[in-house]
């Protein structure tokens, strides 16, 4: 299916799928977006958070008197004060509790200790310095590998009966089948692999403007949230406020990437601040707060083992994971999946046995874990399997492409049930890999590499060339409500479609764009089903008073879930329109056929009604058949029957300077399959962004700590995001394999590139330097040390 077939509207937009310029751009290009820090209300005050300098310390006392005496300070909130409101602790999205403002102890560097409300942001910042906190520092648990040592300090002594730092163990797969497979294998490769702690770091930091209107009793919160309705319900549950009196508004969001899913203490403090002062209170964190306290991502210490025949047929894959969750278990993922979807680590290959065990621990670091386009831990899973496949290729002396081709699932095997219970919906994996290799000119690249290696053996100096690849299967669009809920809220999302009398439409969504172009792409879905030009369809989102309930946008779920809801709603409108058209044309519904935007009489196409005609009739005085209501609306809550499974094949080419360890990414080829593409331009943009993430994580990004728990990545000077200089031109290809169960066959793509790219880059670098494994980020120092056979530990400053 091509996406260039749709006819064009009067404004030149595709009536349906195809390349369409974005409606959002009009305001963003002019600097007329409304992000949270752009919200200004009369009498608005400003909040600032005082944070702990210690990773682990007892709080002996908090003296706020000097801050309260500051002439421009209107309130100071402490944990003690919150305790009187039963708000000092709040539930996390994982069944744990998290401190809003610390009471007994601080448990990570950067943890929230007090909140100042002042007349302007500069005074609020000044007042922080006037608060005196008496700390008694305690030894910190910084290395997850030591968190379960018998003498490790107990972090969560706030939880009754807690005597260690263990959170949970979770298993999937068949341990016995694995043991059997390993015992029979010709080759077993074991490798310790770290996916270090990283951070989504969207360009806009997190924040809120909370306004508790004492007169109406309504709380309105403008906030950076990817899930406005979930936030509203949580505020109701946590703060005991009546839910119908809470309005959460997600205005324009400057990037989410999973950073803006949870409720942060700062938001709660802004609500409390508004309640105390009677004025709106704005709190927007600075970048160091964002990096040090909001949801980090990954931090999985993995030991993988792969068993294979000597010909390269994989027999089994197993992995033990130590998961560093920080000081509170605050991961955002479906309740029944404490390790997210990590058990999709079996990957894209055909073998019968797999097993994983995930052990989660507390450490004295910020809470989080699920973020940064991880698709609920699928980034970790794909990195693990794609590194293991390359390690196996290295062990066998086999080309990694050949090894993958040998083991990839075949199209006739779909739908395919993996050894850990996932049902992949559709895919032609070998074709995607072949397409990537074709675009890359893979054989020529290997030939060039061979020539360079021969030259090096002759004594010629020059960069080391590396070729790496990754093949990934993603599972997105969570999810069937029977299996997937977050804090008891089922992961079904909705869409409400209203066609106005003049034939223009409004679509209200429960998902929340943060740059993905929903205002355009969702209009295109409606346009595809109803023939209404996209410019005549308004997409409304972000305000819980004006949109249907849903769990929001993350895990690439918007198109699979709300996109499906939208398609179904539009299909229902079309079906109702048929009935109304038949009434207007005084014929039977069976006499009518649909052509783009029009129900017309079969054999007599001059007799027909456009959606606009039908909409007017639906609102008018036309007599409707028994049981048919007027107007032309539909409201759908879509409960997806399964996830959808986008996939892709990525190839990366690097050049490594052996004298300095510097890596240059020469080329990156990405072939993605996300089913039919609603707007190819938007899809490509999503992929470009995710590929840059891969370069970032593979070469630059890490939240490291020193032995005392000091955070070494607390600014953008230390937490290095890729610039234009580190990114190559991205070379994209596509295959299209529709999802059989999605109404328009689309699969979702927002996180695919972030999932698949890090392994491709890492595999390329290691291929260049001839080292089996070294951990990300592969900075020049890390590369050089790997070449010396003394790899660096990248997440802890030990030297």
């Amino acid at each position, binding site marked *: 299916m091509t996406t260039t077939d749709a006819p064009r509207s009067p404004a030149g937009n595709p009536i349906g799928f195809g390349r369409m310029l974005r409606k959002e751009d009009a305001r963003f290009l002019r*600097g007329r977006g409304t992000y949270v820090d*752009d919200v200004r209300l009369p009498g608005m005050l400003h909040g600032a958070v005082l944070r702990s300098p210690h990773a682990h310390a007892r709080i002996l006392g908090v003296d706020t008197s000097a801050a309260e005496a500051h002439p421009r300070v209107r309130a100071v909130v402490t944990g003690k004060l919150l305790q009187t409101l039963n708000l000092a602790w709040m539930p996390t999205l994982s069944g744990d509790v998290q401190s809003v403002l610390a009471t007994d102890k601080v448990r990570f560097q950067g943890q929230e200790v007090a909140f100042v409300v002042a007349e302007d942001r500069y005074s609020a910042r000044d007042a922080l310095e006037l608060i005196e906190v008496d700390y008694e520092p305690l030894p910190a648990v910084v290395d997850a590998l030591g968190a379960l040592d018998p003498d490790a300090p107990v972090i969560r002594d706030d939880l009754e009966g807690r005597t260690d730092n263990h959170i949970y163990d979770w298993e999937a797969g068949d341990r016995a089948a694995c043991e059997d497979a390993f015992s029979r294998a010709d080759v077993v490769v074991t490798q310790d692999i770290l996916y270090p702690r990283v951070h989504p770091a969207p360009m806009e930091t997190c924040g809120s403007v909370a306004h508790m209107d004492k007169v109406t009793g309504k709380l309105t919160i403008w906030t950076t949230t990817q899930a406005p309705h979930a936030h509203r319900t949580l505020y109701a549950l946590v703060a005991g406020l009546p839910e119908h009196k809470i309005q959460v508004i997600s205005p324009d969001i400057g990037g989410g990437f999973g950073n803006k899913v949870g409720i942060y203490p700062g938001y709660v403090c802004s609500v409390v601040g508004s309640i105390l002062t009677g004025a709106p209170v704005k709190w927007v964190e600075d970048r160091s707060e964002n990096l040090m306290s909001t949801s980090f991502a990954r931090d999985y210490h993995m030991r993988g083992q792969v068993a294979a025949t000597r010909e390269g047929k994989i027999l089994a894959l197993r992995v033990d994971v130590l998961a560093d969750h920080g000081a509170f278990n605050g991961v955002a993922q479906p309740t029944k999946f404490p390790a997210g979807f990590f058990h999709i680590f079996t990957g894209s290959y055909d073998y019968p046995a797999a097993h994983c065990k995930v052990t989660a621990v507390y450490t004295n670091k910020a809470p989080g874990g699920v973020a940064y386009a991880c698709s609920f831990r699928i980034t970790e899973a794909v990195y693990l399997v794609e590194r293991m496949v390359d390690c196996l290729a290295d062990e066998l002396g086999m080309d990694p492409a050949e090894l993958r081709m040998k083991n990839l699932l075949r199209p006739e095997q779909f739908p395919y049930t993996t050894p850990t219970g996932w049902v992949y919906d559709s895919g032609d994996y070998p074709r995607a890999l072949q397409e990537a290799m074709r675009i890359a000119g893979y054989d020529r690249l290997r030939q060039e590499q061979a020539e360079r290696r021969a030259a090096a053996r002759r004594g010629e100096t020059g960069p080391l060339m590396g070729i790496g690849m990754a093949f990934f299967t993603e599972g997105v669009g969570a999810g069937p409500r029977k299996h997937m809920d977050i804090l008891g809220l089922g992961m079904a999302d909705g869409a409400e479609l209203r066609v106005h009398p003049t034939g223009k439409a409004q679509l209200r969504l429960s998902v929340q764009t943060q740059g993905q172009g929903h205002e355009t792409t969702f209009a295109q879905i409606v346009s595809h089903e109803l023939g209404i030009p996209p410019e005549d369809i308004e997409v409304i989102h972000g305000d819980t008073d004006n949109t249907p309930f849903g769990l929001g946008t993350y895990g690439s779920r918007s198109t699979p879930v709300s996109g499906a809801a939208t398609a179904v709603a539009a299909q229902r409108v079309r079906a109702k329109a048929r009935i109304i058209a038949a009434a207007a044309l005084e014929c039977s519904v069976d006499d009518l056929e649909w052509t783009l935007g029009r129900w017309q009489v079969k054999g007599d196409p001059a007799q027909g009604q456009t959606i606009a005609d039908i909409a007017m009739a639906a609102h008018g005085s036309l007599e409707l058949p028994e049981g048919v209501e007027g107007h032309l609306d539909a409201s759908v809550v879509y409960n997806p029957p399964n996830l959808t499974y986008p996939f892709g094949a990525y190839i990366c080419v690097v050049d490594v300077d052996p004298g300095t360890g510097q890596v240059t990414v020469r080329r990156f080829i990405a072939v993605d399959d996300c089913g039919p593409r609603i707007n190819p331009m938007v899809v490509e*943009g999503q992929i470009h962004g995710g590929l*840059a993430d891969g370069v970032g994580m593979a070469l630059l990004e890490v939240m490291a700590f020193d032995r005392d728990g000091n955070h070494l990545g607390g600014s953008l000077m230390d937490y290095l995001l890729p610039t234009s200089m580190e990114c190559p031109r991205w070379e994209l290809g596509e295959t299209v394999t529709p999802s059989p169960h999605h109404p328009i066959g689309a699969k979702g793509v927002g996180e695919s590139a972030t999932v698949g790219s890090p392994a491709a880059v890492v595999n390329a670098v290691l291929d260049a330097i001839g080292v089996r494994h070294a951990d990300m980020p592969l900075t020049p120092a890390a590369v050089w040390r790997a070449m010396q056979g003394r790899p660096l530990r990248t997440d802890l400053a030990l030297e």
Partner: protein
Amino acid sequence: MQITVNVNGNEASADVEPRLLLVHFLRDVLGLTGTHWGCDTSNCGACTVWVDGLPAKSCTMLAVMASGRRVRTVEDLADGDRLDPLQEGFMQEHGLQCGFCTPGMLMTTRWLLDHQPDPDVETIREAVSGNLCRCTGYENIIRAVRHAAGHRAEEVVS
């Protein structure tokens, strides 16, 4: 202290603290919220404006330093309904997604095109190396600038 800054051709006067950052003067005092901020350490470039015709990170300049100078922000690029060709290029080539880095990118690349009307890919890449983007992977930003320079719908140049 009293300052007067020419912002987008208009004289703007106010009484401000010396420590007020230029970005806050533009956003909070003048209400020009098109200029954004995204870091504490002058890295991200979301705050880029022109000061006396040169791109500057407005988070790393005091409002008082701009007194008597000319400042140009993103709000000055469009001419009423007519987008600047660079803004048009960003729209045509999907050079923005969340829009947060976009004003800074526009101010940096507008200056580039004013001084180098036909920059090649590497020149553009280097010019925006002080402006971070988390959404686009920079690919379409480069295409947008090339578009504005007169090159439409280019193939990837390996």
